[in-house]
């Protein structure tokens, strides 16, 4: 049952590797960027998983009498909120660069861009 208990971590590794594969394998810049986003999302899942405590509920104190209540650790959730913002910024910037590449090269295929630059230099 240990393998099932680590289900989230397996998904994390799977997503991480899927993203990495797309980054390496695809020539289309948008597809590469999708790979990069999957790669980053994997880490979000990882952080959210590691704050979970068995039987723990959402870390919101409603009733001050319930001192024994077990809560999930809120800190990784806060951390990953920051990391999500960073991820959005990265994606936005990369998309902006892709738009500029499309304007300048007329293509977003890496192989075709390389071909075009060869004529330039």
């Amino acid at each position, binding site marked *: 049952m240990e393998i099932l208990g680590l289900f989230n971590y397996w998904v994390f590794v799977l997503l991480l590797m899927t993203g990495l594969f797309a980054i390496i394998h695809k020539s289309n810049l948008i597809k590469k960027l999708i790979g990069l986003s999957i790669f980053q999302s994997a*880490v979000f899942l990882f952080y959210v998983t590691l704050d979970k405590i068995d039987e723990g509920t959402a870390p919101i104190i409603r009733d001050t009498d319930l001192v024994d209540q077990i809560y999930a650790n809120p800190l990784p959730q806060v951390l990953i909120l920051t990391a999500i913002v960073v991820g959005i910024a990265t994606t936005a910037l990369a998309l902006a660069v892709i738009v500029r590449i499309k304007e300048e090269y007329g293509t977003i295929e890496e192989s075709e861009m390389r071909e075009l630059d060869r004529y330039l230099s």
Partner: protein
Amino acid sequence: MTLDEAIYNQLPALQVIVPLIAVPLVAMMRARHLAWLACTLTSLLSFGIAVVITTELLAGATWQYAMGAWPAPMGIELRIDSFSALLLLIVTGASTLMLLAARVPIAAQIQSIRQPLFYAVWLLTLGGLIGILVSGDAFNIFVFMEISSLATYVLVAAGRDRRALAAVFTYIVMGTIGATFYLVGVGLIYMMTGTLNLADMGVRLEQVADSRPVMAAAAFITVGLALKAALFPLHIWLPNAYTRAPHIVTAFLAACSTKVAIYVLLRFDFLIFQESIPNHALHFAGLLLPLALAAMIVGSWVAMFEDNLKRLLAYSSIAQVGYILLGAGLISTTGLSAAVLHMFNHALIKGVLFLAVACLGVRLVQLRLSELGGVARHMPWTMSAFAAAGLSLIGVPGTAGFVSKWQLIVAALEVGPWGLVPIIAIVTSSLMAVVYIWRIVETTWFAHASTAVASVREAPSWMLVLVWLGVAANVYFGLQPQLPLTLATGAAELLLESCCD
């Protein structure tokens, strides 16, 4: 408490906050000269703060600062020691020098309407790099790393060369993979220790020493940061980014960005993992030494045959990263102090070399060696400065480069008979540096004048003054290396204090 004291106590926070506060102000300015002035003054102020902090820490003390008066490890701690102080000097100093020289090359390469934004992004990069250096919190370092990286991507893509866009896309992908790896590593450590404070982490990891998540964390963090530091063979983003960026940006990045990644790498591997993973020193050296040696040889080898001047220097930078990590891989006080000293010296050397290239770039569009024949006869001051900095890169006695290479060789000798391998690599790589620097000197001074350079004039005199100031610093720190050496030795002792020997 007087006002002076009150400000003095806040210096660590001011160090990082001053450039960050200036970012929106500069971004809102419309006049490009005003933006330049504000940006340069801010950078100069940061440099001043760094100097004051350094003088305070010369004796080897550590300056701890509780952000918002929340005590560590719960609150976020700023922590400056002699290692970070040395790097602060490099980053703020390089930024100030390049900004002082920036007006003419920027005017040539960036549309005037975009210049205020460019300077704002420059300050963002500076603030991010400083933040990495002063922070004592693993997650904070991640955030600052991403601030500086995202800003750096914008700086690199700011020019008019469309190939910069392709280069920057690779840089974004590689940089993000590196940062994400680092984030995974920090998550794994947090899972095992429940803390993000670096000092606290080191202590608590001992209780869970020799566990698999910690090993995985060490692997993720080391590889992620090696990617950011452009350690061979993870360097592929670097040559194109350096070549296609606006010249003055290249000078700034070459002087500091990879060094800051190496700083975080050494911090983690020596202060945190050293005690919590058995035989970590051996693993660290076993991984980094071969790669460092390969970087030194391959980087210099490619540089010998490269035609594009900026790309040539970029490959030389890859070789220099090898030198730095070679010193660290020897795991001794001498080796580490040599590595840290070489970080300082290489920043001086490459900063001046790329600044001289920026001087060339003011007058010439193409920076290919094959089209630079005889250019030194038109720009003697620029090219003599280049040659002088080149001597420092090679490691001629009397220059800064000599001091750190000598330290490296001494450190290698301490290892025993196996130390011969790094010494041979150092000497070979330096000889290759002689070849590629001589190629440039020969082409620019003695080759037949190419048509492209027939009508060029000498670079603006203000830029020449700054380049020669850099050359003077190279000679000064070659003859009087006490200041960086004291800080580097302090850093080495600090890094090794928790270690085995």
